[in-house]
């Protein structure tokens, strides 16, 4: 019953009517390029959060001893429910965060944890000292001493608990960091811009939880991925400057007060960050990763259309005689460049009643991108089916 409740929970609270339908087919295509056996369900919910859950296993398990077990044979190997915050449903550029969520699927399926976690040193000595100090403090003195359990046992219990918290935190943080690298590999700078836009108000930069590392650490890692991989200056000097500013912020020390998080932070050394970057980057083949040359071409070829308020449904490419429908990653990256570096030009090209208002202009950009997703996907699918029928 609990798993059925979990499955039904996908629908409960979901606001299907405001989940942008245009987003689903290109997202499904992007994900299936990387995880060929996966399917997705996209929902929007009231939480200001993006998430991903795999439910095929739960469904199989639930029906395993019932007459309906055979029905589950038709399920895809993995069925991911991706959730976007309903309040941001139409903020298309923010949905580049979904690359990180897809990263969770890749992280699990490719067992990337096995390549990283054994190399992370758990600070056993520091945990031992800390446990001793805590136990000693709790043990107290005088009369109190006789009423509590004996000292060594208490110390072991505290050490065990601390070890669990610290190792659990390290494991979750490594997962999140690797998924950030995967996000950059799949959607390029667009993922980084979406991340910094959504998560990193200055007050939160050093805030961590047991499940998520401090954003400053994540920014440091992502900047280190972006700089060598993308010709940022070639695209736009303002984009290059912006990343430069984030590099400075990410490079500063993390100001972490909580002891367990401090220990986890010490374990994630620069060497471990480099390993995370390496393993994450290697998990996405070059043919599927968003590349620097694509970024430059996209800004040269797609941006002129969007800047003139025309959706990029088919784009003449230098490399191809016929215009091609751009993919999701291409549109998201151009959208971010337009918003961050060329927004004024975009506004000037809009009808006066929209262009005069910054928020209305941003809304128009989002609508234009959604339209581009919709039309590009129709074009691609139409061509695929036409070719299949010919063949």
């Amino acid at each position, binding site marked *: 019953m609990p798993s059925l409740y979990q499955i039904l929970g996908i629908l409960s609270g979901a606001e299907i009517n405001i989940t942008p339908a245009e987003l689903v087919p290109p997202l499904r295509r992007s994900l299936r390029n990387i995880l060929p056996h996966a399917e997705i369900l996209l929902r929007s919910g009231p939480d200001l959060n993006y998430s991903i859950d795999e439910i095929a296993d739960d469904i199989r398990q639930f029906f395993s001893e019932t007459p309906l077990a055979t029905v589950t044979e038709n399920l895809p190997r993995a069925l991911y429910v991706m959730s976007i915050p309903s309040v941001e449903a139409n903020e298309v550029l923010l949905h580049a965060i979904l690359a990180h969520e897809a990263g969770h699927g890749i992280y699990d399926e490719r067992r990337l944890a096995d390549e990283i976690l054994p190399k992370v040193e758990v600070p056993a000595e520091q945990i031992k000292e800390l446990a001793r100090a805590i136990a000693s403090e709790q043990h107290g003195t005088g009369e109190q001493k006789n009423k509590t359990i004996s000292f060594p046992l208490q110390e072991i219990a505290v050490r065990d608990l601390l070890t669990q918290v610290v190792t659990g935190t390290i494991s979750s943080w490594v997962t999140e960091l690797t998924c950030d690298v995967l996000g950059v590999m799949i959607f390029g700078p667009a993922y980084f811009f979406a991340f910094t836009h959504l998560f990193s108000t200055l007050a939160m930069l050093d805030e961590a939880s047991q499940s998520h590392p401090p954003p400053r650490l994540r920014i440091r890692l992502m900047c280190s991925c972006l700089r060598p991989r993308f010709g940022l200056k070639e695209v736009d000097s303002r984009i290059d400057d912006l990343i430069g500013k984030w590099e400075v912020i990410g490079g500063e020390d993390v100001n972490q007060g909580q002891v367990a998080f401090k220990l986890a932070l010490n374990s994630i050394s620069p060497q471990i960050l480099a390993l995370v970057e390496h393993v994450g980057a290697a998990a996405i083949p070059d043919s599927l990763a968003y590349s620097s040359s694509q970024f430059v071409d996209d800004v040269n070829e797609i941006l002129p259309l969007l800047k003139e308020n025309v*959706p990029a449904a088919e784009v003449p490419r230098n490399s191809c005689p016929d215009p091609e429908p751009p993919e999701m990653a291409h549109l998201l990256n151009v959208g971010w460049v337009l918003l961050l570096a060329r927004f004024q030009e975009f506004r000037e090209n809009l*009808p006066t*009643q929209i262009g005069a208002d910054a928020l209305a202009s941003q809304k128009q950009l989002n609508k234009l991108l959604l339209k581009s997703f919709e039309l590009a996907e129709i074009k691609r699918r139409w061509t695929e089916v036409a070719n299949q029928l010919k063949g």
Partner: protein
Amino acid sequence: MTKPVKERLIITPLLAPDKQVSDAAASVDVRLGQKFQVPRRTKLSQLNHLDAEHERNLARYIDETFVRIGDWFVLHPRQFVLGETLEWVHLPHDLSAYVVGRSSWGRDGLIIATATGVHPGYSGILTLEISNIGEIPVYLWPGVTIAQLFIQQVGGSEVGDRDQSAFQGSTEPRSANAAEADRRIIKNIKDSPWPS
């Protein structure tokens, strides 16, 4: 040399360019898009373009529906919906266009578009006002060619001139207030004092 985007005629995407644009025809065939606005039965008693609440009333009166290519929408006799062209149409300053329903649909009792003029400098999808005046339901399949666009040259407007209508930049079918600009004058014209 390629013209700047602003000066280009763009109709995108053309799913089957050879069929949609032919030398023998004076028009471009356009397809039915995936979004529909369906009037709802509500307690709203009338639509009044002079009413200050008109736009709010419109929002209460309309349901938005997304029908993916491969699915269909059934239009019942005497039912009216707003649809859209699948193609985005971008006209430069020296071209205008007319949208006309394809006769094969008209013969089934379907009226496709009534407000048919598209001004120079327009950029957006075209909203189609679709009615079934026949006797039996008609299936509307997004992706079918539903109308044709006749494009003609105009003089007098300059590069950079843009259509400033409320529909400019539309990404989905849209209604609008036809009396917005004149509402105050029309409402006061009867009771305003005559000059003495």
